[in-house]
């Protein structure tokens, strides 16, 4: 048996239970709660570390990562449009999902690195924030064209006030202001229980991923191929950029994982309202039923080795 982090088994349990139609459902409120705690915990952790090392935020690094967010959707779009022969709206939707990031995957790589005692840059939650939105904007432009009829102010508001950004930045700010001593009183919930909360989150993710399996069967091979090939290629790009920016081994692993991950919260919601003719099941199934499991089961250990190879 491979040495899997125990939290990953909860994901496997969720998939098996969902596929077998077991009598197992977490109420929507539990999922909301668990994901809220995770997002705040990730933000707080980053904020506390930032307060501790007070190195500030390197502008060049954040600029490079922001640029990555704008560029990643382009090859994904080309692949889906010209090799997958998908309609323009569907190809743009896939591009947005794969260019953007998954905070769930980020939580898993955090746990993975912590278990192995590998440090990474404390500002990594900021990378998540920088990578979430640009790809979705590019995807919408790819679907609609620059002159297209898009309610930008409404859209930008929805994107920047989305749950993940508000909670990540909010947690980061609170952690930064309160510092290590200030957050000691909330440490039991947000830091000590992190892995347990993550396990519950992954159980629910497994159930949700299993619910996508019928769609996966319908769309078949292209989605599976796309959902594995794109993260592998994007991990190379992310790791390359991380190496170029002089990140630590853990930081390169995190950036590779983020580039490889696909959004299943922010991108689907934005696309559903901005580009309604795109098939929502296609992108969501690829992101949830193929790429998310691939990244947490196989991808992350692989990206760590990739980072080690680059560093060595």
């Amino acid at each position, binding site marked *: 048996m491979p040495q899997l982090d125990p939290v990953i088994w909860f994901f496997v349990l969720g998939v098996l239970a969902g596929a077998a139609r077991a009598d197992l459902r*977490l109420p*929507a409120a539990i999922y909301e709660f668990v994901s809220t705690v995770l997002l705040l915990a990730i933000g707080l952790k980053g904020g506390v570390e930032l307060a501790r090392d007070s190195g500030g935020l390197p502008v060049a690094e954040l600029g490079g990562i922001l640029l990555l967010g704008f560029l990643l959707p382009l090859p994904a779009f080309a692949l889906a449009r010209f090799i997958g022969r998908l309609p323009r709206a569907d190809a743009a939707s896939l591009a947005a999902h794969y260019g953007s990031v998954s905070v769930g995957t980020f939580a898993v790589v955090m746990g993975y690195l912590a278990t192995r005692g590998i440090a990474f840059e404390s500002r990594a939650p900021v990378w998540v924030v920088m990578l979430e939105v640009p790809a979705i904007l590019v995807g919408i432009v790819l679907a609609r064209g620059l002159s297209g009829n898009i309610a930008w102010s409404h859209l930008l508001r929805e994107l920047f006030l989305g749950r993940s950004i508000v909670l990540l930045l909010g947690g980061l700010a609170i952690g930064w202001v309160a510092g290590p001593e200030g957050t000691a009183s909330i440490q039991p919930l947000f830091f000590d229980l992190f892995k347990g909360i993550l396990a519950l989150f992954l159980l629910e993710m497994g*159930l949700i991923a299993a619910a996508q399996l019928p769609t996966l069967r319908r769309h078949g091979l292209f989605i599976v191929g796309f959902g594995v090939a794109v993260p592998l290629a994007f991990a190379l790009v992310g790791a390359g950029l991380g190496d170029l920016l002089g990140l630590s081994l853990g930081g390169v692993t995190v950036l590779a994982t983020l580039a490889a991950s696909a959004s299943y919260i922010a991108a689907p919601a934005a696309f559903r309202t901005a580009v309604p003719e795109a098939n929502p099941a296609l992108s969501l199934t690829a992101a949830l039923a193929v790429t998310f499991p691939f990244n947490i089961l196989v991808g992350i250990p692989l990206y760590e080795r990739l980072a080690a190879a680059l560093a060595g």
Partner: protein
Amino acid sequence: MEQFPRRLLTVVTEAVLERDLVTELESLGVRGYTITEARGKGSRGRRQSDWAQEGNIRIEIVCEPALADRVAARLRERYYDHYAMILFLQDVSVLRPDKF
């Protein structure tokens, strides 16, 4: 007890539309509505309610028949093509006409 005729418009659709729909309803002059979470099955497959992302909502509006018809027409024109949405109209009676 005197009763007054009104129309009940029920809309079952994707939860992701909630905010847009509420704005739309208010701009058409709807003064009150009730929204509940819903799950079920239809031409676009099974819709679960345990994940907000994929859930359904049910919106109920009681109002003057003319307004209910206007709202129904607008929703059909704007949302039927691309979203999972059904709506139906029923004649109902209310006791306090000034409220609806």
